[in-house]
């Protein structure tokens, strides 16, 4: 296309001009094989990666059609090296397949005996293989199914796993669609997973991943183990499952630090599974001593390394990964691909927002001046205390107070990192505070109150803002908290992106001390948010104080 919407760069990024007439078609076409890297207002950047291309192969796309899409939409000549690279990379997936042979059991088979020769010569692979059956087939020790896939991926020859799954112990589970229905994309996600066998579903925060899990369970009709990040998330899963499925309290067990229940559906935390006692993982029996038909991994991008290790041992069980992003900051994307499975479904954040399932949001950075005394204290502070010194400036309290007053009647969260700062704010604003020290019972009560609208504002610490569900929060005011990882920011943003009943725009305020490291963190945040396509605006605290700015 001489005037296409897409520009293919030599560093394997794809630039999509979204105001172009053909942009929507192009986006749909490239999303299948390229990872969306950033989506600011005019031009979105996608990236071609090996894993992305293999995910596309797993979904049935071939190199020919990928190249065809690029050539069709590209404005300029596509660098030849990239076309070759795509063809070569994609041709590597599926040359090796894991299958179940009626006589020999688990086998590794190939369409290209040279590839098989290459991989079985690899030192790491050799001990996982049994006897050679013919030039194109070799036996695999069933216990090595996962580790073999990991090793093959590292060798650049990812195997397609067609060896099937055990059914697990049957257990009837139905969705209870009383007064609600599964959203179309949730249904497609669950079905995409089920047909693929195992794999990952990528959905933005607030898009209802729990329901995709529930739908998958209703397809599996079997006992299920759900792995979640922490106890609060475990309770939420439990509540959601009770509400949305035929499961009753007796059928759902919690396996955490405080309780060790094993039921037909068991929800376990990563933490309890990775707890070591006397040098060994004390609770791994939970995973391999029970006949689970389905294992669900919540927040796959946070899966700790030991969980991968035991996941390698349970490759004959169906695995569903749920996440908002495939990007892992530890670079373990390959482990997710080989051990949990390829991406089975994803849908862009903005598309779900456009369908009205996620609230639109506006991001506002409020620049606060330090007082002269604070400036001098900041200048001479030891490097490790610098951030704390500027992030906890007194002025922020005054601004937070103003903002809370301004948004009277809306559901407001004040988020911060330092407990004394949060304590002071709580006192000054007269609203309750939740930190990591708050007992779970009290925490749940406060959340419940917030959910039901009895409480309009909460001060929460960073600890409290993972995997909690605050459906009607429309305003978030962040007073401190260095720019964390990208996922952490995505999570935090997700807190206020749940759909609002009246469809109003959510607001995300960040209070930033001018000319300090606080501002540097803010710049990272700005970049991140703008890359996600959120509008971002800077206002001066002084203008707010004198009421000279429209918020």
């Amino acid at each position, binding site marked *: 296309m001489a005037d296409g919407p897409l*520009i293919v*760069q030599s560093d394997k990024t794809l630039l999509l001009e979204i105001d172009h007439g053909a942009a929507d078609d192009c986006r749909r076409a490239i999303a299948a094989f390229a990872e969306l890297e950033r989506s600011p207002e005019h031009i979105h950047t996608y990236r071609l990666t090996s894993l992305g291309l293999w995910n596309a192969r797993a979904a049935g796309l071939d190199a020919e059609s990928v190249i065809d899409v690029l050539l069709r939409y590209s404005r300029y000549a596509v660098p030849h090296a990239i*076309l070759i690279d795509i063809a070569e990379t994609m041709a590597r997936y599926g040359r090796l397949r894991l299958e179940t042979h009626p006589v020999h059991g688990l086998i590794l088979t190939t369409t290209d005996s040279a590839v098989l020769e290459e991989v079985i010569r690899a030192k790491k692979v050799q001990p996982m293989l049994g006897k050679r059956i013919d030039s194109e087939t070799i036996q695999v020790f069933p216990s090595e199914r996962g580790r073999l896939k990991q090793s093959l991926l590292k060798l650049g020859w990812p195997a397609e796993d067609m060896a099937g799954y055990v059914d697990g112990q049957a257990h009837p589970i139905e969705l209870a669609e009383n007064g609600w229905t599964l959203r179309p994309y949730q249904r497609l996600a669950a079905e995409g997973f089920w047909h693929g066998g195992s794999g990952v579903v990528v959905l933005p925060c607030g898009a209802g991943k729990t329901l995709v899990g529930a739908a998958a369970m209703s397809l599996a009709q079997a006992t299920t183990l759900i792995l979640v990040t922490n106890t609060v998330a475990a309770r939420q899963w439990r509540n959601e499952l009770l509400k949305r499925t035929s499961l009753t309290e007796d059928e759902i067990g919690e396996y955490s630090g405080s309780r060790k229940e094993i039921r037909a559906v068991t929800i376990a935390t990563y933490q309890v599974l990775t707890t070591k006692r006397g040098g060994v993982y004390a609770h791994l029996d939970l995973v391999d001593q029970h006949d689970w038909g389905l294992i669900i991994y919540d927040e796959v991008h946070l899966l700790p390394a030991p969980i991968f290790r035991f996941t390698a041992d349970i490759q004959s069980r169906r695995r569903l990964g749920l996440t908002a992003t495939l990007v892992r900051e530890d670079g373990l994307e390959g482990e997710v691909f080989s051990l949990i499975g390829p991406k089975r479904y994803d849908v862009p954040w903005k598309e779900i927002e456009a369908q009205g399932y996620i609230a639109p949001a506006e991001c506002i950075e409020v620049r606060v001046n330090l007082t002269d005394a604070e400036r001098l204290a900041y200048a001479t502070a030891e*490097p490790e205390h610098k951030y704390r010194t500027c992030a906890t400036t007194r002025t922020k309290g005054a601004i937070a107070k103003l903002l809370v007053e301004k948004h009277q009647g809306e559901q407001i969260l004040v988020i911060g990192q330092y407990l004394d700062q949060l304590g002071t704010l709580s006192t000054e604003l007269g609203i309750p505070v939740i930190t990591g020290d708050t007992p779970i019972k009290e925490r749940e009560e406060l959340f419940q109150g917030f959910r039901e609208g009895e409480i309009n504002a909460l001060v929460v610490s960073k600890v409290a803002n993972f995997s909690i569900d605050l459906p009607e929060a429309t305003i978030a005011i962040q007073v401190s908290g260095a720019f964390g990882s990208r996922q952490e920011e995505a999570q935090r943003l997700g807190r206020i992106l749940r759909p609002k009943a009246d469809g109003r725009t959510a607001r995300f305020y960040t209070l930033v001390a001018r000319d300090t490291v606080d501002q540097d963190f803010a710049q990272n945040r700005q*970049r991140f948010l703008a890359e996600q396509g959120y509008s971002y605006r800077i206002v001066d605290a002084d203008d707010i104080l004198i009421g000279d700015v429209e918020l």
Partner: protein
Amino acid sequence: MSATLRPARSLADELRARSDENLRELFLLRPDLLSPLPTDITALAARASAAPSIARVLDGLTTWEIQVLETIAVLSEPVSMEALLAITGDNAIAPVVKFRALALIYMDEEHIRILNSVRESLGPEPAGLGPVGFGAKDRWLKKIDAAPPAAQAMLEKLTWGPPRGTVSDTKKPTSTISWLMENQLLVPIDGQTVALPREVGIYLRGNKVHRERFDIPPDFVGKELALEDVDSAAIGAVLEILHHIEELLHFWAGEPAAALRSGGIGVREIKRASDELSLDEKYLVFIAELAFISGFLVLHNDEEFLPTTGFDLWRNKTLEERWVELATNWLSTSRVAGLVGKSERGYIAPLGPEIDRSAIAHIRRVTLELYAQISPTTVDVAALAERVKWERPRRAFGNHHDYVHWIAREAQWLGFSGRNALTSFGQALLTGNADLGMQKLLPKEIDYIMIQGDNTAIAPGPLQLDLAREMSLIANIESKGGATVYRLTDHSIRRALDNGRSSDDIKTFLGKISKTPLPQPLEYMIADVGKRYGKLRVGISFSSYIRCEDQSLVAQILVDKKLSHLQFRQLSKGVLMTEGDTHEAIDALVEAGYFPALEDRDGALVARKHDRARAKTKARPPRISVDYARPSDDLIGAALRALRAGDKAASHRKSAPITTGTPSETMGTLTLAIKSKATVTIGYADTDGGLSERIIEPIHLLGGILMAYDHGSDEVLRFAVSRISGVAIVE
């Protein structure tokens, strides 16, 4: 051609009998014969049979041609065409015609005579056959079938060469050897060596000289493509390589690459540049070499490589001109970038002395001409290597797979080829066509960018040169290709301020060329940097000082651990002092996140320039080995006239008496000779009074001085007309 030639007794005879057309063809095929020009045909024949010239010709023959030539060389003279074709088949006719045109052979009646020097150049055992035997054929033929089994086994061993065998003593042979020698089936070479005679070898080979005839050139055709697709794929590469060379040289201008003591650039420097620019190392080596042979990069003060002003001149040319310069240099260079890297002899460095290979330019041209033969069909590179080896077995052997692979790779990087087929402009350049037609293929320049909320600015096409320059000052380039992605950061803005822009300049410039409104946070950032810049002044007096009115900033600098190595001392309120170099101090401050500005003695801001280092050394691009250029028609014409005249003069010297004439007669004859381009013999008085006879070609006559080409000395000389005793025109 052969029909016009009559039988000859020697090569000189045959050459003399050739028509001008024939000789012209010879000069086109062997341009080395023209420099220097032989005086007459005898000298030409001698030059044509000189070993270096013969070697040059043989280097240009195909595998099949060598096989035919070897066959001629091993057959007993005189070789009849029938005898040759009986062994080689009819495909040998074309090579024989070519050999005659090349003057490797000449015809004596019906028979082929091969030059002794050609025979010598083919080696002592052509096609692995031994020396000429001396037995009568009918005698040994009778014996050979009756040979005892042991003798037969020995013959079999020697049949396909090497034809020699070692024995303990040829004077006291074993019974088998003795039997073979008696029957002339083996001949003694020296005390310990026996050999299979040539004729016997050919007989045993089944009346063959070579086990396999390579008379069909190997195929190398790949996929058929449309020329537009080939061109458009290559244009992408063209744009990239032009950009990458600039990027690399800018990088080395800022951080010059240290030279190795043994010459060239070390592996660590290459790796550093490749990491910095995210370019493949092999590709980076290639573009570095390309810059080197183009004179854009030079060894400066024997310690580091720096860009030259030649690079700046090149940068100001159009895209097409820039490409042509690179491509032309690549075509003729004798340097092989592919050799760079680990080898048995240790690391071979780019830009070093170890990668000159005299054969590569020739192989490169042969390879590209093969591309041209089938363009726009793609080549199968592995098969192409075999074909190149077939085309030039004496030049491309052993390494041909590597060489052709590298040539194919470099052609692709350079955009000479696209998707492994020759591009239209590559073909035009190869054939010397001045109009490459690249203009319509290059994307149109654009004059706008799009700025986004994440502080990136995207130029969705090639940006106008001046805008691109300004943008790369204000912003960092994040991704290149059809489009350019720029990222605006506080550091990049600072760089623009360093270069004398104000924050208002930057805002205005961006506002003017951006199609999208400036994001509000970006305006904040530009203003912030502008505000902080210049607050902190670094200046030079006896040492470096820092001046700043902001007390808290001064306090911060004093306690900053990242700056402790500068050992700042506070002189007075708001003034710090360091013994270190001013620029080092500024760099350290920038590194630590401050925004210092440089000021002069009067306190005015001084713009700091970046990436501007240039070598003062003049670039001397490395040796370029080229085949002899195709001689022009004029040159050949003049050479032919001189040769014929010289030849005649040599053979008729005595019978053409020089008539002594008056000066006006002499002038008249000389003028006539100049007009008719005739050769003349003159009598010339030397300075010591002696009279010599010279054969010359008058060129022009002015003021009593004759300029003429003198056959004796092979140069153009001045002759005083007053000293010419007489003139005779050579017929």
